[in-house]
């Protein structure tokens, strides 16, 4: 099966389910056709290990969600693989590659050029520029951005026209066409999210990485954003996104990767991974089932049991410290 047919075929949910059915729902499992492979990335801030990922593969052509509680290191992980941050383990076994090309020492701008474009959790609209100018900046390899050529218009006017048409088409698709002459700073939060996504698409990325695309977006816009993300997938773009909202994740993602305290704790299809004990523990804590308002729990037997558990945990911790 060639690449293009893979991408086209994946618009069908059954095909996606079948593709991923052979994959073990284990953290770090190998995928049939990974576009992104990450090995041994560690990032420490002083004594705190924010990210410690042994191995992760992201399947080409589907929507992968990266979830986890607050402080799990999802955004830091994004920053690391897109070149906005350097792993502490750089040069000591850290290795990641995108679409066959190694990215260990690549700068953020080169990562974007290679086809992996990201958006930001706090949207970075270029406020004092028009929406249209924001879009035009997203296009790659513009001759007019070369200082030697920019003064002579014939060198770039044809390309500029193409870029403009593409920008208008994308703005239309993201229903921002009427706003094209407004400053990006005057857009609402949700519109900025749309603009950022549209701008990222100007470069025809192979993979788009969305950092909390739904944060601060009203429910009506969420629906249309979800539609856009799904249609991207259907057109063959790989999507990796960070999200908190479980409904969103369950609704659109084909594969879910769960992070907690910097580590990968689970992987799997959206419907089954939510019931994974490791995931529930990560989100709700190991004692989430315990109802503190239940009088039956106040019996001596339960108290003894809880005390024993606490003692066991303490002993464990002491042992760890000793070693």
């Amino acid at each position: 099966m060639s690449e293009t047919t893979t991408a086209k075929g994946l618009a069908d949910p059954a095909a996606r389910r079948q593709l991923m059915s052979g994959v073990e729902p284990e953290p770090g499992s190998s995928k049939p056709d990974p576009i992104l492979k990450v090995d041994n990335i560690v990032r420490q801030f002083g004594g705190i290990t924010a990210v410690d990922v042994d191995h992760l593969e992201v399947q080409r052509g589907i929507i992968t969600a990266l979830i986890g509680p607050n402080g799990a290191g999802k955004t830091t992980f994004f920053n690391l693989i897109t070149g906005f941050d350097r792993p502490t383990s750089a040069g000591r076994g850290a290795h990641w590659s995108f679409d066959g090309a190694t990215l260990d020492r690549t700068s953020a701008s080169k990562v974007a050029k290679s086809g992996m474009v990201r958006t930001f959790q706090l949207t970075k609209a270029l406020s004092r520029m028009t929406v249209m100018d924001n879009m035009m900046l997203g296009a790659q390899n513009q001759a007019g951005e070369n200082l030697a050529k920019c003064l002579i218009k014939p060198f770039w006017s044809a390309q500029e026209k193409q870029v403009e048409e593409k920008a208008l088409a994308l703005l239309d698709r993201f229903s921002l066409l009427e706003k094209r002459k407004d400053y990006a700073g005057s857009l609402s939060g949700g519109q900025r999210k749309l603009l950022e996504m549209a701008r990222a698409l100007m470069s025809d990325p192979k993979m788009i990485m969305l950092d909390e695309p739904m944060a601060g977006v009203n429910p009506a816009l969420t629906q249309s954003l979800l539609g856009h993300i799904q249609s991207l997938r259907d057109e063959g773009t790989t999507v990796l996104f960070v999200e908190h909202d479980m409904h969103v994740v369950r609704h659109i993602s084909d594969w879910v990767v769960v992070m907690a305290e910097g580590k990968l704790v689970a992987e799997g299809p959206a419907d089954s991974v939510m019931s994974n004990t490791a995931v529930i523990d990560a989100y709700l804590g190991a004692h989430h089932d315990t109802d503190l308002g239940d009088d039956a729990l106040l019996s001596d037997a339960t108290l003894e049991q809880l005390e024993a558990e606490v003692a066991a945990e303490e002993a464990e911790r002491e042992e760890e410290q000793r070693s």
Partner: protein
Amino acid sequence: MDDIQGILNAMMRTAVDPQTAAVAIAVIGLNIHFGYTGLINIGQSAFMLLGAYGFAISITQGWPLPVAILVGLAVAFVFALVLGVPTLKLRGDYLAIVTISAAEIIRYVGRSGGYESLSNLTNAAQGIAGSQYRTPFTDLSPFPTGTTQLLPFNYLDVAGGSTVVRLLGWLVVVAAIWTAVRIGRRKVGLEGSTRTLAMVGLTALVVVLLFFLAPVSQRNTGVNGWWFTVVAWILVGISLIIVLGLTRSPWGRALKGVREDEDAMRSLGKNVFAIKMQALIIGGLFGAIGGMMYVLPAAVQPDALGRSITFFAYTALLLGGAATIWGPVLGSLIFFVGRVFLIGVANTYLSSDDYLNIMNGQQTSQFAFIIVGVALMLLVIFRPQGILGDKRELRFNV
């Protein structure tokens, strides 16, 4: 009335002064740094000083004029590289710190007499006298010797220069400027080429009327003569055309993108360091050209191109409007002409026995600077976008 005419004449002389044009060119360069790219360069005077040194020393060494200009530009180019490589990868504040200290280093090296091999070239604090390097430039002048008055036909020729004629003339000037402002703000129903034509026509009318009401008489070729004035303002025009071309191109768009958010630009695959470096170099080259023009009618004195010139340049830029094409020129004109106006008023009315005599000659100049300072503060508080800036840009936080 003669007092007022005297002040007006002094203002017009400053308005056509080649040094005003020279600072305007340096401000155009600073506008590329600060206005378009968001680089906080507090050392524009160093680019000017280096350009001036490179130019003047080359000529005193007997090199031809074009080579001297290239040397001046090359020195500024190297200076921009040296400043940019360590700082442009860091946050913007570091460039500000490094440029202001580098400018002081250049000035102190220029004025120090410690090394004989160096002070033989720069002549230390005394500087290089203009007569040592001016000749190749004055020799190029196509103008005949003598003196020319602009306009030859002026208010003195109409009704013997009566007050009524002059008042009428100034009324027309004010009306023309007011109309131009209305058209500029799109409050008059003119669009497209009609609008441009109306603006050009009104500007030309104002310029001609100003020369009619306050004629300027200068030698044709001598120091500060018409030859210097014409070349300086032609250079301003060329700089404006270049900046217009640069900022309307995709490269100029990338500059603004870097100003707004560097990380966003990185995420779009742009090489932010290269863009910032190119902007620093281009703006610095404009600074060097301004510096050469600045010293041509004067002398290369390191202390004359110190911090205060940088701050004048920033004042002019903020006054005219950062990130606008015409802002630097308008700002420089208003700043220098306004200062002469304040000094003139203070000299005439606050320092003479005819009116009030409350300050001496030195104090009037300081008084003018105090007023300029207060005006700048008011400007930044009440109209931070400058005269030509777009108010829409201020509606959201930067």
